[in-house]
Every structure is written in structure tokens, then in C-alpha cells.
């Protein structure tokens, strides 16, 4: 286990380093942030002064070296626009995105799993056909279009839900979140569903495939021959066995939920990371873009590690490898 952990950490460091190199050099290829920061009609001396202030007059490799030295001590540079540390800005915005992604994930499981299991248990019924057809739609409909449609129907036409933004937040057990207030929930529900739709379809497909595979196995037949009821077989024999692949896939997908929340956040003007980074890209706010990308990479690395741990925790064949009684 120790060897495994050390190996993983070393790999992660290498990945992070390579990633920072790629991100840094790419960002430096596009545009000149000074044009965005200074009034183009300013005196050349003024422009040069700003350039010097941000260290943009130096060659790229020196800039990178400085950035790397700062990164070692947790300083990813200051935002050109806000003048505050990029990392602080990201951490400030992160709870809103985390809240959105977590809600979407929970919706995906709550909605997708029962539908998928139902479709797997009754593969030839009408219900299964409708569910599977729906899941194809869920995968193919573009998120942004669906978001706009939801706003038109539920906010503009029916007036049930607020159009955009994040609602009131409340503090519960030290967590500041909008899910603890009614207003917050009303704001959250549409973007969360919008973001969840793709994942619901993924969960349905995974669950159905898992059910069809596991139900054909001998131990299910043996469980029936032992006189166990159908509910019991589904609950304690089928479910745990199909959950292993679903949970491992979803844990990785959680990373994509956070990374791709950008589209949903833009549509619903959700004040999360996605909006921050889109604005940063438009304004050529390099430190924010770099910090965001490295943040996402770290997130994926951590999630991957968690997946491995969950996998071992769920499956005794992995957990108890080698120590036969």
C-alpha cells in the first residue's frame, strides 16, 4: 500500500509539472494582456511601466521559472484584473461550483439508478424502451440549448423558477450553501438538472448493462433456488454488484462535472468557477487561466486516487488480496 501511495504521488507530481509547462506556454502564445489592461491611447512609457509591473517584459522561460518558484510556495500569481491572488479567487468561487456539481451527481444517481435497474430487469417492456430512448436523447441534446429551453419554459412562460444566479445561502454545520434555503434551492434546481441530464443517461446505461450482466450470473440463480424473494435478490445481491463499476465511473465523471459546469454556469449566470474562467479567458487574465487548469488537473488526480480506494473498499476480492485465511 505504501509503495502504491508513493508511486501515485510521484506520478501526480510529474503530471502536474508537465501540465504546468503546457498550460504556461500555450497561454503565452495568445494575445497580449497589456492591451486589455491599459487604455490603448496611453503613452508608450505608461504601457512599458505596466508591462514591467506584471513582469511581462521578460522572456517566457524566466516568467515560467518565476511562476514555478511561486507555485512551490502555493502562490500562483495575482490576477491581472482583480489584483488578488489567483488561487484565492478560485477557492472563493469553488463552493458554488462544488454545490452545483454535487447536486447534479446526486440527481443523476437518484434518477438514473432506479430507471436503469428497471430497464435491465424488464428489458423487453415498453417502459424499458421509453427509458432507453430517453437516455439516447439525454446524451445527444446539447446542454446549453436545453438550459435555454428550460429557462424559457419554467422561468419565462410558467414563471415557476428564477431565471439565473445563485440564491440565498445559509450556514449549516459550517458549510455555506444554497441548498439550506428555499430560495437557494429554487435557484439551484434548474442548473443542477441541466448539468445532471447527461450523467443521468450515463447512469441509466451503466445500470442497465450491469443488471443484464449480473442477473445472468449463477449466484443470482442460486439465490433464487435458495428461496430468497425477488426484492431481496435485487437489494442485496444485484445492487452491490452493479454499483462497483457505476461508482468508479461516476467518481471520474465528477471531475468532468466540475470542469464542464462551465457551459451550464454561463447559461444560468451561476457565480462559479466556470464563469470566472470564461471571463478570465476573454480578458486574457493569464494567472487565473493557469491556476484554474492546474486546479482541475489536481482535482482529477485526487479523484483518480479516490476511485482506486473506493474500488478496493467495495470489492473484497481487491481489498483482501493475498491474505487468504
Amino acid at each position, binding site marked *: 500500500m505504501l509503495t502504491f501511495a508513493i508511486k501515485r504521488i510521484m506520478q501526480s507530481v510529474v503530471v502536474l509539472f508537465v501540465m504546468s509547462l503546457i498550460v504556461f506556454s500555450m497561454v503565452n502564445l495568445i494575445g497580449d494582456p497589456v492591451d486589455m489592461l491599459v487604455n490603448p491611447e496611453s503613452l508608450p512609457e505608461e504601457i512599458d511601466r505596466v508591462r514591467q509591473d506584471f513582469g511581462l517584459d521578460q522572456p517566457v522561460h524566466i516568467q515560467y521559472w518565476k511562476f514555478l518558484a511561486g507555485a512551490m510556495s502555493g502562490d500562483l500569481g495575482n490576477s491581472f484584473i482583480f489584483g488578488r491572488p489567483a488561487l484565492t479567487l478560485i477557492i472563493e468561487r469553488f463552493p458554488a461550483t462544488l454545490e452545483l456539481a454535487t447536486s447534479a451527481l446526486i440527481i443523476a444517481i437518484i434518477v438514473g439508478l432506479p430507471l436503469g435497474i428497471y430497464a435491465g430487469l424488464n428489458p423487453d417492456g415498453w417502459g424499458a424502451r421509453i427509458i432507453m430512448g430517453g437516455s439516447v436523447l439525454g446524451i445527444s441534446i446539447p446542454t446549453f440549448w436545453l438550459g435555454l429551453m428550460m429557462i424559457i419554459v419554467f422561468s419565462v412562460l410558467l414563471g415557476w423558477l428564477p431565471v439565473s444566479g445563485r440564491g440565498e445561502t445559509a450556514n449549516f454545520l459550517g458549510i455555506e450553501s444554497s441548498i439550506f434555503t428555499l430560495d437557494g434551492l429554487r435557484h439551484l434546481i434548474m442548473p443542477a438538472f441541466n448539468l445532471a441530464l447527461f450523467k443521468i443517461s450515463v447512469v441509466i446505461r451503466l445500470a442497465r448493462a450491469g443488471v443484464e450482466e449480473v442477473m445472468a450470473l449463477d449466484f443470482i440463480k442460486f439465490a433464487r433456488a435458495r*428461496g430468497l424473494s425477488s426484492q*431481496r435478490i435485487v437489494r442485496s445481491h444485484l445492487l452491490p454488484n452493479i454499483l462497483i463499476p457505476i461508482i468508479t465511473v461516476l467518481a471520474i465523471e465528477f471531475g468532468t462535472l466540475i470542469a464542464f459546469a462551465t457551459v451550464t454556469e454561463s447559461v444560468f449566470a451561476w457565480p462559479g468557477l466556470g464563469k470566472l474562467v470564461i471571463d478570465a479567458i476573454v480578458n486574457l487574465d493569464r494567472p487565473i487561466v493557469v491556476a484554474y487548469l492546474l486546479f482541475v488537473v489536481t482535482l482529477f488526480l485526487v479523484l483518480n486516487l479516490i476511485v482506486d480506494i473506493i474500488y478496493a473498499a467495495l470489492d473484497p476480492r481487491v481489498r483482501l488480496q493475498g491474505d487468504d485465511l
Partner: protein
Amino acid sequence: MINWAKLLEINGLDVSFSSGQETIYAVRDVSITLNPGEVLGIVGESGAGKSTIGNAIINLIEPPGKIINGEILFQDQNLRSLNDQEMLNIRGHKIGMIFQDPQTSLNPLMTIGAQLLETINTTKKLFGKEAREKAIDLLQSVGIEQPEARMKAYPHQFSGGMRQRVVIALALAGDPDLIIADEPTTALDVSTQAQILDLIKAICRKRKLGVIIITHDIGVISNIAHRVAVMFNGAVVETGDVKKILSSPDHEYTKSLIAAVPSGKVKVERFTSIDYIEGGAKTQKRIDVKEHWLGEKLVDTKSEIAISVEDLNKEFVLKKAMFKRNRSNLHAVKDVSFSIKTGETFGLVGESGSGKSTVARLIAGLLRIDKGTVKLFDIDVTNNFKGMEVTAAQRSLQMIFQDPFSSLNARMSVEDIVAEPIRFYKTASSNRQVKQIVRDLLDHVGLGTNAMIKYPHEFSGGQRQRISIARALASRPKILICDEPTSALDVSVQAHILNLLKDLQDELNLTMLFISHDLPVIHQMCDRVAVMRQGSICEIATTNDLFNAPNHTYSKHLIKLMPA
């Protein structure tokens, strides 16, 4: 307990499977009876419908299968008239079931304790401490040591035989009156098989249970059953006392089925094939080695010794670790030495995990050799794949694998499969000649030339094994390694394949390394035999000596277990 005159009575059972327009009868007009305390064997080859009867009794036939006609009277109650809820009170409560493969009959994510407890909860309505005690009792009664500690273990922590014991404990959890065992020992080694059969016998006697054993193995039937029903093509062709049926069968099919079982006692020239099924023996065309393509360049074998193996060693890494004390290796092959004379059939016998297949793979160069040398016709081929001589030596060695389903590429036509070695070694001058040779080979292994354009999935297990043999022959081998070539096949098919191998060996003067766990088959096929156990060879002897006067204790043990 009420004493039922008949525990189970099945009258005129028909089960059909319909797909589209077609309806196939898996079971046709079957009638059997079973008394308490009696063991009834149902024997037949795959596809005979034996398992369907077992599934029909507890109403677990997979769709599209359906019971069409007949009644199943269990303790004077017609099981067909029960609804799903009432059936739940029969399954596990009154009728227990044991399946073939203990690797897959248990939920891998639940401890065996939890699986036992849930069964006891449902069938006996016992909970908490009482249920626990009952579970521990059950484990003890099926011969599991330290049952309390093992309650917390997961299925993968048990060996195959132990797992089958757990499965039996689960089947007994509801104190059933009838046990249906569907091929309960097929996935197990000979010595484990004997233990499990003894256990079933003892339980049957002690609890006065009726037992139905479904198997393809006549040896198992003769060991355990009181009465036997022989099935062929969905129908029971003969039923009666086991001694009577085995010694003087009436029906033609039973006769040929019993005759096809390789005997451990008498060595015969050829296996009796089940002519009843295939309708008359085909006369095989013999090839004249001097003129045939297969015979070309075959005669230049000067060396007397075809394979010689010295101090062969192979270790597999089970667990990697930074520190040596945490690492664990499996020493699969330990100091194995033997030599095989040209034209000889050498047998390797042993239980699963004894390292016999690993030896074959090491000789064939499919695995790296850790220590030791392998010589083919006096040419050292140890971990050496370069040089003309070595390539030629390796080409002369071909392998036939156990599983005819996974050893053929499903996306290649039979023609391409057989032609591949010819094209690779460029042993034919033109494409037309390649076609001609493939046609000839297929004809020779008894498949007929129209097999060429087909794909592997269109063939049965036995036919696929014939394709494997044709493919092996296509590189004009002098040595054939057969790794359990017939253990996935029915007895009748096995007889055909073994006869084919014998004929080929006679014609082409092949040297054969024949690997099997099946002693009677080894007895019939081999000139000399090596007995392997835990990676080392216990004994090498001529077949006659080994079967009549084994030296090593382990060989004696194996020979003793061999079904009569």
C-alpha cells in the same frame, strides 16, 4: 417427519424452447420417481435436457423455455399448480439446489456468513443468535474447519472444493427434503470430487434426503447413485438400478455411452465411438506419407529424443512489494526433467494447479524459462527465438489447447485459420496450393471441404477441436503438445478426437506430449506418464507400470480415486 411413499414423481414432462417460428423440445415426455433417502442419477451428454429437468422442478426455467405438459408431484403436491409466492416456500425450504461451478454460485461481495444467515432468515425464520448457531452448525456439518472464523470470509478466500461445501451448506440451510445437484463435481479435481461425493452421500443417509444428481460423468453415477435415468435428446431412454444399467444396459445409446468411457483398467487400440449418435462410423482415408504434402521433409528426423527438458523452473510473481519479505511468488514448476523419444506419446497428469500446463507453455516458448534447458531434437531452444535452426525446431512443435471456443479467432474463416501457418512459414508455393492443402487437411481431420468458408461459431466444440488439430498440422509438426484437448468435450466426441489423434500419430510418426487430469484418458493414450504435483514430478513410469503398480504415494492415491 411424514413418510411419503414417493418424494418426487414426474409424469410426462414436456419442456419446450421456442424462438420465432421454431419450437425445440428440450425435455420430451419424461417420467421419473424418487423415494426418500434415494439417490437418482440423471446422465446424458450436453444438450440432452438433464439440467432442464432440474430447473423445471423448482420452476426456474429461463425464458423462452416453458413447461408445456406433465405434472411434477412433490410430496403429493403438484408444483405446477403453485403460484410464485407459494413456489418461494418450496425453493430453499423443501428443495435445495447445488450448481456446477462453485466459483460463480456465491455472491463475491458478501461474506459466506451473511449469505448463510439471509438464507436461514428466510427459510427457517430464525434470527440473531439462533440463526448464527444454525449457520455455524451447517458449516461444521459440511466439513468446514473453524466455522466461526470462516463465517467472516468472502467466497474468493476459499478453494473450489471448500466453496462447493459452502454451496451445499446453503442448499441445506432450509432443511430440505430433496436436493438437486446439477453437475456438482464437474469443476473440481478428482480428489476433491471424491470428498464432495462422499459428503453428499453421508448427508443423504443422515437426513434421509432424496437426491437427484445430474451429470455427464458415468463414473460419478456409479459412485453415488442407487438408480439411474439415461437421457438422450430430451427423452429418458432407460431407467433402472445403477448396477444393472451399468453392467447390462438394454438400450443401444446406453451401451455406446458406457463403451465410450475410457477405461482405466484395460488398454484398447481404439476408443469405441458412440455410433448411435453419429449414425455409423466413417471410414477415414489414410494418407501415404511418402506422397502427401504433410510427409514432405518429415523423414529427416535423425535425433532419437524429440523433447528433452532439464531442471525446468518457473516462478510467478503473486504480489509485488518493495521489501522482499512482503513479496510472494508461486513456484509453479520446480526442477522438472524428462525426455520424450521420437514417436512416443508422453503423458503429464496431475490435479489443477500442479503446473502441467505451465510445463507445456515453457516448452512451447510461450513463457520465459527462469532456469533450466529445453531441447527440441537436440537443439537448445531455451529462451531463444533467433537463428534458422531454432526457428525450424520450434516450427516442428505445435500446440492444441483445451478450450476450443477461445483458441480460434472468431473473425477469421476456417480457411484463413488453417492457412495462416502455411502462409507464415511459406511452405506452399502458390495460393492455389495453399487452398489445396487446407482442403486436404480439413478433409483429413473429418470436417469436409465445405468447412473452409465457414466461421468458428458455426461449429460444435468437437468440430472446433478438429479445426485446431488441422491448424496445428498445417505447419507440418513433428511434435504435438495437447493441453487437455478433450476435457471440454462430451465422451462421445472425446472418443472421436482421441481416435483422430492416435491415427495421425501413427501416420505421421508424431511425438506427443499429452496433458490431462483424466487418468483413464492418459491410460489409453500414452506410452509413458509423468505424475505432477505442486510443480514437481513425483513419478515417471510406463503406463502399464503406473496403472498396475504405482510407486509414489501420490500416484497411488490418484489411481485409487479413479472411477471404476
